[in-house]
């Protein structure tokens, strides 16, 4: 069972608000990821990190930013939320190795009004 947590699970906010989505893992994995997914649709990688102080942009351009100050923590921030940011955000982690198998958190469903 993967130990990766996301909070909040659900968030409804107004346009222009600043939000931070939290992601923590207790597996000691160096690599962490953020994906954006519309309901029932494909995953889009928006950010990833190789380890502490490492952040990279993913395949899908995103207005969000991330930080990696601690191995276990990889928060995602939106400075000014817009309705177009409405989506599900999934955090994942993996260890270095042959398979690259990723373990996912339960996700945060964001609705921007």
């Amino acid at each position: 069972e993967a130990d990766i947590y996301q909070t909040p699970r659900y968030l409804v906010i107004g346009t222009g608000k600043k939000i931070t989505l939290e992601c923590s893992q207790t597996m000691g994995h160096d690599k962490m990821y953020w994906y954006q997914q519309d309901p029932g649709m494909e995953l889009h990688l928006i950010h990833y990190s190789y380890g502490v102080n490492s952040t990279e942009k993913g395949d899908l351009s995103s207005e969000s930013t991330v930080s990696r100050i601690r191995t276990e923590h990889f928060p995602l921030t939106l400075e000014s939320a817009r309705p177009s940011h409405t989506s599900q955000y999934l955090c994942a982690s993996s260890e270095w190795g042959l398979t690259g198998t990723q373990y996912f958190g339960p996700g945060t469903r964001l609705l921007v009004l």
Partner: protein
Amino acid sequence: TQLLEQSPQFLSIQEGENLTVYCNSSSVFSSLQWYRQEPGEGPVLLVTVVTGGEVKKLKRLTFQFGDARKDSSLHITAAQPGDTGLYLCAGGDRGSQGNLIFGKGTKLSVKP
């Protein structure tokens, strides 16, 4: 650009039927993962295969990695309503910074 094509995109069957989902690419992968995702939840890992020709079984689910490590299949025997969900395949590739390449998924609905 590496791509993983999943088929079919949608599948609606009756309880008790068998089904197979395919994941194909023109690229070679070092590993292949299968995930199952329920609405509003994160994907849950079902299996990882790493050797060409490898077959793994998980109760009624059988996973196969192609000999050339370019394709994979997931076969479900006697499907049950609890199997309903989005099935995602993902290929591991050392070349893409070690990130996984995800297919678009197969939405399976099993009706009682």
